[in-house]
């Protein structure tokens, strides 16, 4: 058994919306093994970013536990907390909002290096240039401002910034969605290389299932704040158990105009329900083609349906 780097137990993150609680992440349990890439996919609004932000400490959990290398993150002292903030980094979904428009790119990347006193002077500058080149930009770009770059270029700056502080665990929130395909392949190869060379562990949030399958060892599927399925990425694609996963896989657009490549698509009916008042029983039941009576009355148990293949569905 590979050691778990991160264990998430019954984690909850609720937001107050008016007088009600919005259950963005609700009772989520899983672990991320050291050195693996765990992919996370799911409907927009399903709580992937909230989960990622809660793990890196940008959100205070409402309930549940986070154990990092066996230690409860809530009980870290000040020094350990600072270290946690360095070794656990996040690459953000929105490359525009996450870069300070008034700072030069070099200083954006250098900020973490300074905060954690990792290098100074020429060494600092060399490190920034190396990072820029490593993510496919040019050393001269250090002197420019974020607005001078296109969306994809900005996302690469975000990756360089995260790498600058020598992290161990990276939550990558849709890091390649804004990149075009040839560069996605470069960045994915880059992330795989970095993982191999530096022993990084990734939580990789994405909506491109093809890329998620490629990069992930295991994949978790979220819906309305909860996990629906978690399995080895090959198994998830070849034998998806949960009806939501099945719909998700069928919706992948195939880059070919030939008829043979078009697969049968499961169109989900209805609207995604509001996380302010999620459906009783199974959260997916309002859109599930297989919903039964029991689905409205009982919450399906999160169980290991097959070895290492977890699902929450009354069909199993």
């Amino acid at each position, binding site marked *: 058994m590979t050691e778990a780097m991160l264990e998430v137990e019954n984690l909850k993150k609720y937001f107050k*919306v008016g007088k009600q609680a919005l259950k963005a992440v609700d009772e989520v349990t899983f672990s991320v093994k050291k050195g693996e890439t765990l992919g996370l*996919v*799911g*409907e*927009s*609004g399903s709580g992937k*970013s909230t989960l990622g932000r809660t793990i890196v400490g940008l959100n205070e959990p409402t309930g549940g536990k986070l154990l990092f290398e066996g230690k409860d993150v809530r009980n870290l002292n000040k020094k350990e907390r600072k270290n946690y903030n360095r070794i656990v980094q996040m690459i953000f*979904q*929105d490359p*525009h*909002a996450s870069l300070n428009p008034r700072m030069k790119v070099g200083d954006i990347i250098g900020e973490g290096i300074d905060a954690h006193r990792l290098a100074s002077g020429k060494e600092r500058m060399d490190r920034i240039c190396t990072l820029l080149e490593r993510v*496919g930009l*040019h050393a*001269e770009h250090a002197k*420019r401002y974020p607005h*001078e*770059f*296109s*969306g994809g*270029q900005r996302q690469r700056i975000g990756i360089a910034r995260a790498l600058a502080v020598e992290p161990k665990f990276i939550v990558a929130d*849709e890091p390649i*969605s*804004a*990149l*075009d*395909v*040839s*560069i*996605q*392949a*470069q960045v*994915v*190869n880059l992330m*795989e290389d970095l993982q191999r060379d530096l022993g990084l562990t990734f939580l990789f949030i994405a*909506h491109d*299932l*093809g*890329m998620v*399958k*490629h990069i992930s060892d295991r994949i978790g599927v979220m819906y309305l704040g909860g996990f629906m399925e978690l399995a080895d990425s*090959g198994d998830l*694609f*070849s034998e998806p158990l949960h009806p939501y996963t099945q*719909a*998700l896989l069928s*919706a*992948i*657009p*195939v*880059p*070919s*105009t*030939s008829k043979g490549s078009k697969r049968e*698509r499961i169109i*989900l009916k209805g*609207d*995604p*329900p*509001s996380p*302010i008042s999620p459906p009783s029983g199974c959260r997916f039941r309002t859109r599930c083609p297989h919903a039964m009576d029991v689905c409205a009355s009982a919450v399906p148990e999160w169980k290991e349906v097959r070895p290492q293949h977890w699902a929450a569905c009354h069909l199993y």
Partner: protein
Amino acid sequence: MGNLLEVEKLKVSFRSHGGEVQAVRGVSFHIEHGEVLAVVGESGCGKSVTAQAIMKLLPKRGCSIKEGSIVFEGNDLLKLSANKMKRLKGSQISMVFQDPMTSLNPTMKIGHQIAEGIIKHKGLDKRKAKGRALELLKMVGIPNPEARYDQYPHELSGGMRQRVLIAVALACDPKLLIADEPTTALDVTIQAQILDLMKDLQQKLGTSIMLITHDLGVVAEMAQKVIVMYAGIVVESGTAEDILEHPKHPYTLGLLNSLPNYETAEKERLIPIEGTPPDLYAPPAGCPFAARCNYAMEICVQEMPESFETENGHHSRCWLNDPRAPKVAEFAAAGRDGT
């Protein structure tokens, strides 16, 4: 059917302290009535700048349109007064942006942002505009429209914000919808719904769509015609089938080859196009793809290739298509059939 939009030899540059960025370097294309044109290409190749030029959204300072024309229903938009353009933008052409957070007003309730345009351009009163806004929110798949109407953009997930933006863009039944990476931030079931929504608009209302995307799956799903841009120029254009099944430009072939094949069980390393696009401060004189191209010949670095029509309506700006060029057997073998 005639053309709704004709863009001819468009050139756009930015002045920066480092020099002049030639973002768009002579781009021509047209969109027919009721047609979906996909624009694909590397980040920074000038797709958004082209869209912004059409929408007259380029920054006033430091940016200039050097050359070209943008003709919408017979009017050159570049010569239109600011007032006339403003009216056109609300009612005839609208745009969905790449980045929903910066294009929604963070201080304004989302419902009001939709209703605002309806009041201004359709002349409906406040109550009717609210009704229409709720209808639009429902149409784009926002659950609980009544409750969401009074929320602010930061309270929505990325996907919901994008749907709100589409609702804003559709408020006035535009003839042309310019969608800049509209589904990039969404997961596939919602993407499937939004693409269906856009297809529906195209089919029922005859809305023409200029769809900027980097997802070749989306191209296959949506587009009749495709232009592939690289370093500010159009390198290949044709029907969706021409581009996806019979690419005639090494860049297009490279894009197709860099996709993961999720049908196979093995984990193969991806084949990216190595390197990065050229710096547009000083674009190369010859083919802009030469530095990354596996097939580059001597002439490629010296002279910009012309646009060769390889078959009816299928154009490739690559020297390999010159009748005098050596036949590249590899090219055919490297991927799709290359016929």
